[in-house]
């Protein structure tokens, strides 16, 4: 599951593994776990050292030692006045351990009206409804996002990160719910193809990827300077080999669409594409087929097909249909 949207998870790189291992080892101690959970379950977002000590009847020096270790592992932040609060990593990676029950119970009583949620959180709900469309009803997803937001906003000090945290937390809880129902959730990879006009290369790549993977991958396209329509020559060279061109129109590149993607593949307009952490960026140096003779367009098509085949194997998604073998 997971993915989290778990996505077609990729193995951890060495740095991430070292960071997580250090966090686990900082937590492999009952006193430190109790300190962290005292902060997590407190009614306020940040808790002064003496309040922590009182909550769990622990010596103040021991609490201070535990906080230092947790701080070094990036699990706790100290405010200027010494009060401690949890980091996003602590919530996301270990929240389940700290507030056992609360985060995983399936049906909290409170209903949150989606209309009352801030716009950024409503967008998260829409995103997750799309991602989890094969597993949960839109109502379920909305309810989880609303509750996650309420849970986090009760204790958040820095509201800037609230939407991001809400997305991670809600995703996490939905994955847990899916697992508890025995659904193996791998998450559907989100792939975005970006070219200058969103009329040629990105449309070919999108058609090829949809042809190969059907609904197992969510494919989107965008252009930095979108044209008014898809180039008819592109449609022609795809249809002549039996690859259908989905009904699409060139669209501008927006932040949201990049943020919603796991893979962002640019073709000659990398500079215009905003970069966010956690996405996989690739650049495919393909010639622009606009206005070129038919045989040039076909060569670009064949190059796109080869690259899409490699992408599919990297995504670890089973292909439902092979791409037609052309002159490649």
């Amino acid at each position: 599951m997971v993915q989290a949207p778990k996505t077609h998870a990729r193995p951890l790189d060495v740095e991430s593994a070292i960071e997580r291992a250090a966090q686990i080892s900082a937590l492999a101690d009952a006193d430190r776990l109790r300190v962290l959970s005292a902060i997590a379950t407190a009614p306020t977002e940040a808790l002064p050292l003496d309040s922590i000590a009182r909550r769990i009847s622990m010596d103040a020096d021991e609490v201070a030692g535990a906080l230092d270790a947790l701080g070094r592992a990036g699990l706790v932040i100290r405010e200027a006045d010494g009060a401690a609060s949890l980091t996003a990593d602590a919530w996301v990676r270990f929240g389940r351990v700290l507030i056992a029950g609360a985060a995983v119970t399936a049906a909290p009583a409170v209903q949150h009206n989606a209309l009352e949620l801030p716009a950024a959180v409503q967008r998260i709900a829409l995103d997750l409804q799309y991602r989890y469309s094969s597993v949960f009803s839109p109502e379920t997803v909305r309810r989880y996002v609303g509750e996650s937001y309420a849970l986090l906003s009760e204790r958040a000090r820095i509201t800037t990160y609230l939407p991001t945290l809400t997305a991670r937390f809600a995703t996490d809880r939905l994955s847990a719910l899916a697992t508890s129902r025995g659904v193996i959730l791998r998450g559907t990879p989100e792939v975005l193809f970006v070219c200058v006009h969103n009329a040629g290369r990105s449309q070919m790549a999108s058609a090829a990827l949809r042809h190969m993977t059907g609904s197992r991958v969510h494919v989107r396209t965008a252009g930095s300077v979108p044209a008014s329509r898809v180039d008819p020559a592109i449609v022609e060279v795809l249809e002549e080999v039996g690859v259908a061109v989905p009904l699409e129109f060139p669209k501008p590149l927006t932040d949201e669409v990049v943020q919603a993607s796991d893979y962002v593949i640019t073709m000659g307009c990398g500079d215009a594409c905003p970069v966010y952490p956690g996405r996989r960026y690739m650049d495919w140096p393909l010639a622009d087929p606009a206005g070129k003779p038919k045989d040039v367009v076909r060569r670009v098509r064949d190059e796109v097909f080869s690259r899409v085949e490699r992408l599919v194997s990297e995504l670890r998604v089973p292909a439902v249909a092979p791409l037609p073998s052309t002159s490649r």
Partner: protein
Amino acid sequence: MLSVIAGSPGGEATVGDLADALGLRQPTITHHVGIMVDDGVLLREQRGRQVWLSISPDREAAVGDLLR
């Protein structure tokens, strides 16, 4: 190792898969697998000649959190 298993198709991998993915020797992998099987994090299933490793369902959520 957990991230390789969690990210594999079907959520399972063999010791050989892990050794290839991580560039480690099979005895090293086997040693760590043994610890995680004893602890209940990993499940080991023999199918034919291959031993397949997967993340134990009751630990899957916690492992998923950690890999996020």
